[in-house]
């Protein structure tokens, strides 16, 4: 009966479980049985394919944002700048 449980979990995976596995698959290799079940599910479920597409797009956008972080949006406040300069001067005496 074990083979049947394996086969049925592969064929009848619910979208909810698929959604969790899609997310996990972006952070770790899935165990072979789960990975196979997810692949089967994705071939027959356009909604879950779109969900995966959304998560992949989010990752690509965040990587692109990381590369293009502008430095002029939030300048270091003047009082913080002064405080840090004093700390650096203080360290000089300690050197």
């Amino acid at each position, binding site marked *: 009966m074990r083979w049947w449980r394996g086969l049925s979990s592969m064929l009848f995976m619910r979208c*909810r479980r698929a959604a969790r596995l899609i997310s996990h698959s972006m952070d770790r290799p899935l165990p072979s049985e789960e990975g196979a079940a997810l692949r089967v599910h994705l071939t027959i479920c356009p909604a879950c394919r779109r969900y995966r597409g959304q998560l992949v797009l989010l990752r690509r956008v965040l990587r*692109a944002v990381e590369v293009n972080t502008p430095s002029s949006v939030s300048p270091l406040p003047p009082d913080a700048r002064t405080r840090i300069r004093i700390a650096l001067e203080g360290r000089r005496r300690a050197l």
Partner: protein
Amino acid sequence: MKSGDEVLDWSMTIDHDSAPPPTAAAATAAATRWLEDHGDALYAYALARVRDPHVAEDLVQEALLAGLSAAGDFLGWSGERTWLIGILKHKLVDHVRRALRERPPREDGPDGLDELFDRRGHWKVPPTHWAADPVALAQRAEFRVVLAQCLSRLPVRMAQAFWMREAEDVETAELCRRLDVTPVNVWALLHRARTGLRKCLGVHWFDGNGTK
């Protein structure tokens, strides 16, 4: 010695044979100049990740002080901003690790999937197709505002761990090591962050009222 990979390792030992050791005054002068030249960039980098201006200021100060202690051969070198950002990254990781130790993430918390699925595990509202050029989108100011707002709605530690994974491409195993949390913990954390951000951006950008 100063090849691309090595410059990011701020803890590298300094080869004192190739240059005389800097005087304390020269090192401090250099650090003061770093503050002028790179202070804004370091602050923006830290603020984008920790969101609390006071914490960001403290991290910039810690990074510059660490840079001052390790200065040596780096004085006057043109890649110093990369090097300083590298130091700042270490300080950010220390900060997140401390925060996670004080308030460990819950593994059994809601993961945001309950509201997406009915009791039989089917989508209540099937996901739509999000069509966008990620690079172009990342450069749009109005999108970045929405993204920042959506990230700010996540718990701070979760958002920071998520940023390291998704934006900085830190492998999960490395993330566990850096943050001193278990793999199960970090997978749950990332999954919940991803679900939360996807929902917020769906409502306020991709599936929203025509802001595309």
